[in-house]
Structure formats: C-alpha cells, structure tokens
C-alpha cells in the first residue's frame, strides 16, 4: 500500500474510486441537500443585501453536524455564480473558536477587508471608532456608497460568552439597524437559547429572525429512508462526468450550472464541485464501464435488508449527518484491490462500533486481574455504604479479605497494589472526591493535603459496564467472577 506502482487496471480504478469518494465525503463542503425553505431564506437575505443594499440580521440555529456551515457555503457558491461577489460585496467570516476576543476579531476583519495598509499604525480610542474607520475606507467608490457586507459569525454563542463584552456584536447590529452601510449579519450556533445570552442593548438591535435547521424535519416516511438515499447519493459516482469534464473546462463558470443536459442521466448523484475537481485531474481517468458497475453495486447494496437494518440502527442512535459521513469514510477506506466492493458485514461492524462503542467496557477489559479486582472491591464497598467514597485503605481491606479467603490467589505486595490503584486513577476509572465536606474530613484543619492512601475516590464507571466487562473478560479466573456475582464476601 506504500505507493506501489502497478499497472493493474482494476487497481487503478479502485484507487480512483476510493479517492473520489473520500473527497466527496470529507472535502466537499458546498453541496447541500434538503432544507429547501431554510436555504432559500438565507439565500434571500444574502441576495437582497448584495443586490439591493438592504441590511439584515439573523440567527441560524441547529445541532452539531446538521449542515449549517455547508448551507452557507452552498448559498455563497450559488450567489457567486449569479453576481460578481468578490467585487460587489465583502464576505467576512468569523469563528468564535478562533476569534476569541474583540481585538482578534477586529484584526481579522481588517485583514479580510484588506485594509491592513490603510490602518497602518493608527491607534483608535474605541472599538466603534475603529470599525467606523474601516467602513469609511470602504466608501471610496465613485458614488461613495459602501460595498455590501456579509458578516457570518460561526459559533455565535462564543461571541456572547460570559466575561466578554459584546462590543463587536453591538456595533455590527447597530450598523444593520441604522443602515449606515448595507450589511447582513448572520450568526450560526447550536445553542437554542443563544438570544438569552445577548446584552440588552444588543438584543434590542437584533431583528429576531431565526432560521432553524433540524436534521430530520423534512424526511417523510421511515427515518432511515433518508440515510439510505444519502448512502446511494454519496457513494454513487456521476457517470457523465468523464464525458463532461473536457467540455466543462472550456466553458465559462455560468454555463456549467446550466449544463443540465449532461446531468440529466444522474440527477440523483451530485458531482464534486469544480474547485476540487480541478485540483485532482487524474479523476478523469475513471472508466465509464467500471463506474456503471460500481453504481449498480451501490444501488444493489441499498436494497439489501441487512443494510437497511444497519441504517435503522444508526438513525435511532443519531441523526447527525457528520457521524454518518464518518461511517461512510471508514467504509470507503476499506476498499482495496483485494476487496473491490463494499462488504455489508463491514458496514454493520462500523455502525455497531459507532452506535455502541463500549470503550469503557474495553478499557476495563484492558486492566490486569489485580486492577479489576480492585474495581470490584470498590464496587462492593460502595454498594455496602450507599455510594460513599472510599480510600485506598478501605479498598485494600476488602481486597485482602477476598484474597485471604481464596487460597488460589497469589498474594501481591502492598506497593504493587497501591500502584495498581494509582493506575486506575490515571485511567480515570476512579475519580477523587473534590469536596471536603465529607464526614471524614471535618476534623482536618491543619493539613488540607491528605496522604494518598487516604484520599477519597468514587467509581466513575457505571456498574452495568463493570458487569459487562466481567462477563466477557477473557481468561478471567473463576474465583473473581464468582466473587463479583456473590457481592459481599
């Protein structure tokens, strides 16, 4: 797999398919599907700002991975085909994760407006002055009219975080309100209560226009039908592409959109955006016949009951399209010459792994017998004392009781047990109790630091997981499982 150069045509084709699909799943951030109403709404706002110089503000709210960013990308892409976006308007994108305070935000705004030179070493008294200066710089056109601006603020809740003054938001919303310049401010977030975070002066300037994106709202019929369509849609390759590409290259941008004659055959399958295709010219070498064969394989796959069952399982677990894409990515990455087709058992294995990762159980099963014994001792101890935290000495006491009553267990010296206990702590299977209001510590006044043997811990793992781990532990000595099941020794 380390870049062997063979001329086996099958291998070449499989590699190309793998590459194409990986790009389609991970790199394509502008082909959007579904939510036509919401998309139109955003489109409308942007279009009116750019074309008619109106000012707007709105919030887009939807859970993680529901396609908010993708929707915006796709709208911007569409608009850029219709109007000369780069000349007529300024798109300024900020992300609350990166632009964590107003100073950084302003720096980024300046850079995105390409006004770094104009600002130079100038020092501004206030944020508002600075922003006003930037706007005035933009108003240099013949009619002294400012370009339209689209402000897109991702992770919007981060901009109104506690401990952060909302000066940026205040000033932006104020501009949309007072119509100093045509501007659309669109906040994007996954927090439904985000408006509550706004300061009063900011809130009063916000239009209260909300756009909600809920993953499942527009699916009719069985919930997993949507996943099935997505599976087919994502994994199928556009058949016409090879024919189209050479011609496309010669055409102007606009005409590619209208080249419906070429797309007709495969309306369902979206092709990669041109910007990505142009980067990977070798994708033209995909063989037509092979493609047909592949697409037939994928459509066939979507009919299988087993596949449908898997997808149903997944959609009960999550409707997050991004997780679904991760599943597809793992699936596709398993393709190779020796395995040129998608294996249903792979799909079900990956989905099982995603739905019920059981990493906790696996973690418990990675422990040594001694460590697991300590976990069991602790669990028993906490059962007896109604979930009160325990320290090392108490756990040790229970463990020694057990190992003394069992002649077959070899005795382990205390330092080794202590080390095993610390290992559990490192893996965060047990967690120290932070509050000192427990009955044991009330008398402690001189030393707040407790020796490690007496530090109190609670079990951080649900007992179901422990049961599960004990049940399926390979080569577990019988006396341990016996001890576990017979609770108190």
């Amino acid at each position, binding site marked *: *797999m*380390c*870049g062997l150069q063979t001329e086996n045509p099958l291998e070449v084709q499989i*590699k190309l398919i*793998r*590459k194409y699909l*990986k*790009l389609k799943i*991970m*790199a394509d951030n502008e082909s959007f599907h579904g939510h036509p109403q919401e998309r139109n709404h955003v489109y409308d706002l942007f279009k009116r700002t750019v074309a008619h110089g109106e000012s707007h503000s709105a919030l887009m709210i939807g859970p993680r991975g529901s396609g908010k960013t993708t929707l915006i990308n796709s709208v911007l892409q569409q608009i850029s085909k219709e109007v000369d976006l780069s000349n007529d308007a300024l798109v300024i994108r900020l*992300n609350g*994760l*990166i*632009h*964590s305070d107003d100073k950084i935000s302003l720096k980024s705004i300046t850079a995105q407006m390409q006004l770094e030179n104009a600002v130079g070493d100038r020092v501004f008294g206030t944020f508002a002055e600075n922003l006003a200066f930037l706007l005035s710089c933009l108003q240099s056109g013949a009619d002294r009219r400012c370009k339209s601006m689209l402000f897109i603020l991702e992770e919007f809740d*981060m901009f109104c975080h506690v401990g952060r003054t909302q000066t940026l938001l205040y000033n932006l919303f104020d501009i949309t309100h007072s119509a100093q310049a045509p501007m659309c401010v669109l906040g994007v977030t*996954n927090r439904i209560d985000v408006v509550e975070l706004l300061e009063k002066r900011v809130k009063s300037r916000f239009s209260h226009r909300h756009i909600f994106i809920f993953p499942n709202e527009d699916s009719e019929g069985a919930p997993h039908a949507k996943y099935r369509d997505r599976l087919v849609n994502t994994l199928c390759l556009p058949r016409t592409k090879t024919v189209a590409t050479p011609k496309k290259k010669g055409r102007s941008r606009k005409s590619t959109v209208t080249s419906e004659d070429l797309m007709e055959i495969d309306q369902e399958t979206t092709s990669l955006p041109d910007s990505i295709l142009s980067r990977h010219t070798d994708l033209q070498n995909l063989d037509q016949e092979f493609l047909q064969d592949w697409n037939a394989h994928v459509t066939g796959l979507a009919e299988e009951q087993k596949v449908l069952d898997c997808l149903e399982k997944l959609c009960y677990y999550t409707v*997050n399209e*991004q997780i679904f894409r*991760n599943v597809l*990515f*793992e699936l596709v*990455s398993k393709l190779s010459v020796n395995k040129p087709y998608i294996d249903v058992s792979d799909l079900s294995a990956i989905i099982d*792994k995603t739905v019920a*990762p059981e*990493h*906790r159980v*696996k*973690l418990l*099963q*990675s*422990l*040594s*017998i*001694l460590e697991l014994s300590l976990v069991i001792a602790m669990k028993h101890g906490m059962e007896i004392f109604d979930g009160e935290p325990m*320290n090392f*000495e*108490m756990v040790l006491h229970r463990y020694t009781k057990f190992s003394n009553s069992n002649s077959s267990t*070899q005795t382990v*010296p*205390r*330092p*080794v*047990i202590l*080390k095993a206990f610390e*290992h559990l702590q490192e*893996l*965060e299977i047990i967690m120290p109790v932070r509050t000192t209001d427990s009955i*044991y510590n009330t008398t*402690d*006044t*001189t*030393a707040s*630091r*407790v*020796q490690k*043997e*007496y530090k109190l811990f609670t079990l951080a793992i649900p007992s179901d997981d422990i049961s599960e781990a004990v049940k399926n532990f*390979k*080569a577990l000595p019988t006396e341990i499982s016996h001890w576990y099941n017979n609770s108190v020794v």
Partner: protein
Amino acid sequence: MEQLQNKVPCREEQLNDLFNLLGDGDECLPCSIFISGSMATGKTLCVNSVLRCLNYKHVIIDCIECYTPKIIFETILSGLEDEEIEVKCETLMDLVNGLNRLQETRLGYDPIVLVFDRAERLRNLDANIMSAFLKLRELCNLNICCIFVTHLIYENFNFRRGAREPIKLYFSNYNKEELFRIIFLQQKPFIHHLLVSYEVDNEIKGELEKPELFANFLNAFLSVFYRPCRDLIELQHMACVNFIKYCEPIIKNEISATDLTKLWRHISPILKSSLELLYLRISDAKSVKPSPGKENSDTDSTPHNFENMLKEELTSTKTFAQSFELPYYAKFLLIAAYLASYNSPMEDKRLFMKNHGKQRKRLQQIKAKAKISEKLNTQLGPKVFTLHRLLAIFYAILEEKIGLTSNLLAQIATLVELKLIAGSKEIDLDTAKYKCIVGYDFIAAVAQTVGFNVRKYLYDFM
C-alpha cells in the same frame, strides 16, 4: 508495510485501520481521529511508524511538553517548516493564518497530519482549543488531519458545547499470548544484555541463545507477573532483570540449560520476591550492571551479593525508616504521634492507663459496631491531635520519667521539618495541632529499633 507488521506484532487490525484511513498520498484525509487505549498498548508506536512509512508531512506534539497553547501553536508551525526558523504564534488565529500561508507558498494540498500525543493534557487548556483542532480542516484550507492519542476514552473529554465527532479507534490491551509474542521479540537484546554483564564461553552461549530456553523463562515469568500487571513496558523491564537471574546458574554450570524443572524451582522464588519490585525500578543500577572488575576477582561472591541486595530491597521501607537515625526520644515522639493519629481520643484512657478492666464490655460493643461499619481508624487516615495529647501519650508509652525540656519540643519541630508529621513548626502549647503522615510499615520499623510493639496500642488491632 509487511515489515511494519513484523516489527509491531499483534496490532494488525489497528495498523490496517490507520493505513486505510490515512490512505495514499493523494487521497483526502479524515478530519480527525481519536485513538484511545490503556497505557503501553503501542498507540504512539503505531501512529508514529505508520506516518513515517507513509512519509507524510507530520508534526508530533507531546502535550506534556507543550503545556501552553502558544507552545503548541509554535511547535506545529515550526514543525511544518523545512528549515529551523523562529516562529511567533500567540493565538489560534495566528496559527490558522500561518497554516494558510504555508498552503499558499509551499505545501499545496499535500497531506499533513498533526499528532497530539497524551491528548488528555489538552483538557487542562481552554476547552475551545481541542474543539478547534477537531475541526481544523474546516478552519483552514489544507488537507490536514488531527490525530489525538490518549489513554482516556472519548467520554472523558466532555465538551460542553459539543464538538465535531472524530473517527475513533481503540487499542485494546495485549493478552498473555500476545505479550509473550511481543516480549519474545526482545530475545536478542536480552541475550546481548546478559553477555555484556557476564563472561560466557561459547558452548554455554549457544545454550543460552536457544529460543526454547527463553520461551520457557517467559512462560514462567508471565505466570507470575501477568496477574498484577499488563503494562508492556514494565513487564519488558522486569523480564530483562529476571532473565539474567534465570541464566545465572546455567552460566555457572550449576544447572544444565535443559533441566527445566530445576530451573523453574530456581526462578520461582526469585520471581515471587521480585514481584514486590514491580514499578519500583530499584534494582536498575545495581543488579543489571555489576562492575566488571569485581566480576573477575571473585565470581562466587556474586550470588551472595545478589541475595543480600534482594533482601535489602525487599525491606526498603524498613531501611528507609532506619536511615533516618532519629534520636531516641524523637522516635518515641513519632510513635506517640502515630498512635494519636490513629486512635480515637476516647480510647486513650483505656489504651494507656494500667487498670481499665471495667470497660471490657463496652469495648466489645464498640468493636461489634466497627465490624459492621468496617470503618476502622487505620483505614480512614490520620486524625489531627493537639500537642497536649501527643505529650500525654508520649509520657504514657515512655517507661522512664523525663522532664519536658525545650530540647524535646525542638525535636517535634525536627519531625515536622522531616515531613514525618504535619503541622506548624512554631510550638504553641495551647493551639498547636499535628497529624502523623507516615504509614504503618514505617512506624513499625521505627518501633522495632526501640523494642516497642505498636500493634499492642492500636485500637483497631485489639
């Protein structure tokens, strides 16, 4: 690839997954991968060797070394540069700008991988940093993938604001057979190690190099060590130390290399006792490299030395305790402090007064109660006591009569200084409060030197 599978056995599945996900050089990388698994399960090894094999541009960030965001960002940027240059990068925005600049100037869309080793440390930083790295691909215009390597599971990273879900891989721990296979690969270095420390003639050397001998040793070794420990690094170390001891009688022609029962009888007590040294690594310097000069002069004193050393190591707490060489009264003060910490004041009278017959009944009641609750004083940790109480117990356990001198009080300060008891160094007869912070083993060793039986005065052991 084949080669790698041989170098890293028992990790076929994980290596394959990694190769598939990272793909060939021209494929699109996943956005982020999250790798978890217990300690020493080869996570770092697998990720690093896969990346080296694929020859991708990558930066490995050890989150212990890079303990502030600034250091992380600068490590990333300077790691992606070809030559050594100073980069300054304070914020995430600088990082993103820096990455985009690199993309434009040199990197293009070549795959880039950032590995965050020991990623559990990232939780100490601002939570947004990890969220941002989880979706770094979206924030900058590169074919970039972040791999997080940690011994914790994903649920331990609770993102309050949610985060982009990574693809998760799990490295399960090795079982006994797999450990056997992996340690077995170490035969050559172990033998080499052995030959460095001992002079061995060729015939015996041939015997020692037989894989059966090593396999036999490993079986015996794992039968003792597998139960308390599954940490490969620790097991490898202990195996190396013990293999030398295993081969000793063979080198000295005392036991023939084929007499497995005798060898087993020879090694099994050694293994049992060296179990105590697990994780402690005391013997490193001494037993592994006996000085060659001594070796030649008197060969038959070496086993003796070994025994001695072993014993010494086994009683390490004891030797440690005795190494303090406290003055006589200080020892009694320390013992008194221990007793004051682990007995309830209510029982003082009964414990330290000569005639206390009446309380027998009550004692039994209390003990019955304690049995049920199982909350023994010795399990709950030391309690605080006043200076008055300490002195009272001190005089009770000390047979002779001595006066309360400033010298005695100074010794309390010394004990505090030595961190044997906790409390203030200034001595105020009325308000000073202390707590004994040494363990039972330690106090028992100290008591032994003055012929005092601590157990007799501990309420829990009555």
